[in-house]
């Protein structure tokens, strides 16, 4: 029982925006689709929802072929980036509309709406219009609507991107708890790696419509499969060294340390980050980013070092990981 994408692809005007993508999301698992804008993550979500038709490949839900099922009948619980609440209906009517047209009987409608309102603690908003509630409240209503859909799969498209940073961090654990509660597969689209790591069990990193790596957050960080993933995951960005022919060596700023013995370097720029500081150094290997503790005083000429086993190696031509 799960969501399976088998070699799906979609093209617009002869350009593939999603290509040969295979994913497998099991029940109760949250999979994040992560990548820069235009990487095909939202397009993939729309294919799963049935809002667009794939040009190739198959979509299976619980081993049933859903590729050609209309979104009207697909039983998808989706939270849109804009929340897409119907602006002319009250919160209550927004929630009831779907149940009504799907022919759920009156008592059942009442029972389920009351239940969902209390799960999300939005009972007080029932008679308000979407325009008259806050962004965080709108997100809850959108989530409530998705829960009431009684879905086979949950899809969340950047559900937090319209909220401010503090609220986002507060909401993550609760959102994760609520959507995984029903035990359905969850696909979560985001461009924010922190959010992806916090929310997802596994992350699929996409670039130009192609899957770069599918792994747990820890694996992505520890053994990125390509230069792209290495640079995309982890902040500050990983350092890339190209002093050997055909091999790109990568070392994370947090794996470099200051030492008495080591590589001579010159401080160009320094950025204070609170609990630590980011240094930009001129070295024989080129410019390197280094993360060190905030309370260390940095002189203009310092020596740095790192241990060999923290290095990542990539083929400079194929951009893929070696070993």
């Amino acid at each position: 029982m799960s969501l399976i994408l088998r070699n799906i692809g979609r093209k617009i005007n002869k350009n593939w925006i999603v290509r040969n993508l295979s994913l497998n999301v099991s029940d109760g698992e949250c999979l994040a689709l992560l990548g820069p804008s235009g990487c095909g993550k939202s397009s993939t979500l729309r294919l799963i929802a049935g809002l667009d038709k794939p040009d190739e490949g198959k979509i299976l839900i619980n081993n049933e072929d859903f590729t050609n099922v209309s979104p009207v009948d697909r039983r998808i619980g989706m939270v849109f980036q804009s929340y897409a609440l119907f602006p002319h209906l009250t919160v209550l009517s927004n929630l009831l509309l779907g149940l009504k047209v799907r022919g759920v009987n009156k008592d059942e409608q009442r029972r389920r709406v009351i239940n969902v309102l209390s799960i999300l603690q939005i009972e007080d908003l029932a008679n308000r219009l979407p325009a008259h509630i806050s962004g965080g409240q709108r997100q809850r209503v959108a989530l409530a609507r998705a829960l009431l859909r009684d879905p086979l799969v949950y899809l969340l498209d950047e559900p937090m991107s319209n909220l401010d940073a503090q609220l986002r961090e507060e909401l993550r654990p609760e959102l994760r708890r609520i959507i995984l509660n029903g035990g359905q597969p969850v696909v979560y689209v985001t461009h924010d790696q922190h959010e992806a790591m916090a929310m997802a069990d596994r992350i699929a990193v996409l670039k130009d419509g192609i899957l770069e790596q599918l792994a747990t957050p820890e694996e992505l960080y520890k053994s990125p499969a390509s230069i792209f993933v290495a640079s995309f995951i982890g902040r500050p960005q990983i350092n890339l060294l190209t002093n050997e022919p055909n091999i790109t060596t990568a070392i994370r700023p947090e794996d470099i340390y200051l030492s008495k013995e080591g590589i001579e370097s010159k401080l160009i720029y320094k950025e204070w980050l609170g609990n630590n500081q980011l240094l930009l150094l001129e070295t024989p290997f080129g410019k390197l980013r280094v993360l060190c503790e905030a309370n260390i005083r940095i002189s203009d000429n310092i020596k740095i070092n790192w241990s060999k086993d923290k290095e990542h190696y990539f083929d400079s031509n194929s951009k893929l990981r070696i070993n």
Partner: protein
Amino acid sequence: MNKKMNIIIGSLIIWSIAPLAWQLYTSFSSPEALVEPFSQIKNRWTLENYIQVLTADPPFWKYLLNSTIVGLTTTFITLLFAIPAAYSLSKLKPIIAKSARLILFGAALFPYVLLFLALLEFARYLNIGNNLIALSIPYSALSMPLAVLLLSSAFKDIPKDLEEAARLEGLGIFQRLRWILIPLIAPATSSTAILIFLFSWNEYPIALTWISKNDLLTLPVAIARIAGSSVYSIPYGAYAAATVLGAMPLLLIVLLFQKQIVSGLTQGAIKG
């Protein structure tokens, strides 16, 4: 500067109102006052003109009623056809939609008076002259292009997410129209409806040729019939009273629905 502005605005208002005010003045003038509009005479004022118009056969309110019937059926039929068409147009591929819009725009521009002969043949062939409801068929068709253009741009303004959310909620196409889309374009629908109503209320050449029975005449034709006689025998007093009565409903519509009329006209301009 401000004074200059006031003068300009003042003359604008006078320019718009003066001809109407003159009608009002004429409508209360006795036959003696009619030929001496600026002289001091006794018996200047009279209600005789209004009495004459309201007690004529058929009484004047009958024409108002006829125009209202045609106006309402036209508005209803046009919206009934235009709303689905506008939705469909807003979903078509951009290239096709663009050429469809161009055709509609051309049709909206078309001076429809040039169609009257063929439409008259049409009415005779089907034997539907002298029928107010039938009259609203050509009226609906003539207001259709503008209505479809206005409504389809309103549909296009609805965020795509909303309709997609409704689809995922399990709403079929008619349910989406009924519960989501039509309620959301209500402001555009009301301004379109008023423009259609005004058009059919004011239409002249087709009503002139389709309707010959006295008690089925629409207001513009009934009023123009007075002009059918020679210049000197036109009962101007009674005529002015008729125009004042005929203008009342429109005065009301303009005052009540000013916003919708303006937005209808300007939306047409912006999106056209």
